[in-house]
């Protein structure tokens, strides 16, 4: 009987070392990137649709609300940082949607059952989404000459840094929202309710200075306002903006930290309800 061998076998205690934070985070990050470029439609869609949005929306707004002839180009210029924020937001939403997919399939289960520090999971997943978002935001900078901006190396450097931060904060925010959810529809509802208004009221479409009363207040409280304003600082140094660059950068960095802590906290919550 096969069980005879069993009686003599001592239980095997596995002595695998506890993995560090970076290797699991790296592998999760890498997976996001590989998945992205293996889905060609995503690559095309995410580059092409913001360009289309920017041209259509930007030209449309400009012609409708400004009567003077040359203002169309001016509005396209104004809308440019907003368009970058939009690309980043779209990609962040997209990649965090995959979190819900991972949960519904068993993928996330197998990650959670591995001896991986929960911080690695947040880092890997958020950095993965943020990388994709940032790359597309940065690629969009190629179109700056279309709005008559020929940025210096310094302003490209600042823009890239700001795009990285916006990507990170939006992805981490998306992660925090998507983590407890199990249906893409519910996530979509929240996207429409929170993330899109977050973008609309960030000074992307119209400046806070022109808004009235409560809306102005909401825009001032919106952390994304400072990211978009920082981009404006970088790309149009001559133009007067709502806040100085230093404040914009500080608020944006602070919000990055805040969203990361939030996503970390929500993942570390162990409960006696089903984890996934």
């Amino acid at each position, binding site marked *: 009987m*096969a069980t005879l061998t069993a009686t003599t076998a001592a239980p095997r205690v596995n002595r695998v070392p506890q993995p560090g934070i970076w290797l699991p985070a790296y592998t999760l990050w*890498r997976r996001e990137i590989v998945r992205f470029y293996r889905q060609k439609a995503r690559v095309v869609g995410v580059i092409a649709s913001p360009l289309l949005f920017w041209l259509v929306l930007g030209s449309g707004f400009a012609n409708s609300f400004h009567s003077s002839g040359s203002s169309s180009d001016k509005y396209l210029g104004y809308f440019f940082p907003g368009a970058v924020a939009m690309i980043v937001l779209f990609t962040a939403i997209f990649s965090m949607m995959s979190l819900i997919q991972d949960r519904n399939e068993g993928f996330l289960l*197998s990650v959670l059952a591995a001896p991986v520090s929960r911080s690695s999971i947040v880092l890997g997943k958020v950095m993965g989404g943020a990388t994709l978002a940032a790359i597309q935001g940065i690629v969009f900078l190629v179109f700056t000459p279309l709005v008559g901006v020929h940025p210096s190396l310094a302003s490209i450097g600042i823009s890239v840094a700001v795009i990285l931060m916006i990507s990170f904060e939006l992805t981490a925010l998306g992660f925090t929202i998507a983590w407890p959810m199990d249906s893409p529809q519910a996530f979509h509802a929240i996207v429409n309710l929170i993330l899109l208004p977050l973008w609309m009221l960030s000074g992307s479409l119209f400046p806070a200075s022109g808004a009235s009363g409560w809306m102005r207040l909401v825009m001032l409280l919106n952390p994304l306002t400072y990211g978009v304003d920082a981009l404006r600082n970088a790309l149009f140094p001559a133009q007067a903006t709502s806040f100085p660059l230093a404040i914009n950068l500080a608020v944006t960095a602070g919000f990055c930290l805040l969203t990361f802590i939030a996503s970390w906290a929500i993942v570390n919550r162990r409960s006696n309800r089903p984890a996934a």
Partner: protein
Amino acid sequence: MATMIETGAPDRQIFSAGAAAPIELISLTHDYGSRLALDHLSFTVQPAEIFGLLGPNGSGKTTLFRILSTLMVPSGGTARIQGFDAAREPNKVRQQIGVVFQERSLDLKLTVAENLRHQGHLYGLSGSLLKTRIQDSLNRVALADRAGDLVETLSGGMQRRVELAKCLIHSPGLLLLDEPSTGLDPGARRDLWQYLRLLRDEEGVTVLVTTHMMEEAEHCDRLAILSEGKLVALGSPFDLKSQIGGDVVLFETASEETAAQLAGKISDRFLVTAKALGKTVRLEREQGHRFVTEVVEAFPGVVEGVSVSKPSLEDVFIRRTGHRFWTEKTTGEN
């Protein structure tokens, strides 16, 4: 109340002193709000055995599986894995176990090798060690030639084999498999069980399998049968079945009332315990075939159909719970 039924072969209890059992449950309890999903479960899984958790949907086996795989904290009692508390030392437990969930955990957009590399990284493996492990585990499941293929191009059976290779990448001593043969054709199912036995015999791996299929439970060395969160039977399939005296006899009748009446009459007259289960009267008796004629002659016109069979695991379940495996009321989530 703690249900301890120690019918498992006692000679299997011996293992080296001081070493912890692969799985030890001490009065493990879990509730989802008002509903008790696990009711003071206590049992021990021995090293290098294939242990089955058998139960219908809603019996609590999925809840137990979640607790053992550290995805959920139980509301009471203790689950120890190789001596580590699943609720308090999740990371230590996670290093000891390889888990195959019912859901597909592979990334379809990655290749077979990429999936395994990913898993290895999660367990802190890298470099040439990881390379050898990937090669070994793919050889074991006979998929070395598909290493570079995207998982989405593989058949369901092959994907299941990759899942197995994936959970073995860190060579755990304990495998947890949730309904492993779901969606597998008979051939693939046979291969899976052969492979599990190989792991048990050659590497001393302990395997815990949940299942709702009686035929599958037959393959296990020992079984815990769960019903409504309680342990109703524990032992080898053979021992459990041999506790039932003789044959199992079923009499079909026209209605539930007739069945209930017939059960009463048979019990009175022949001094056996006959139970009505819906329209069927069920009893256990030596020499079942002889008994049938006596009953049919004693109560003419009532019996519409008869069956006599050797006891099955379902009979064990019916005897211990008083109801059928599948008619058990399913109470919400499982």
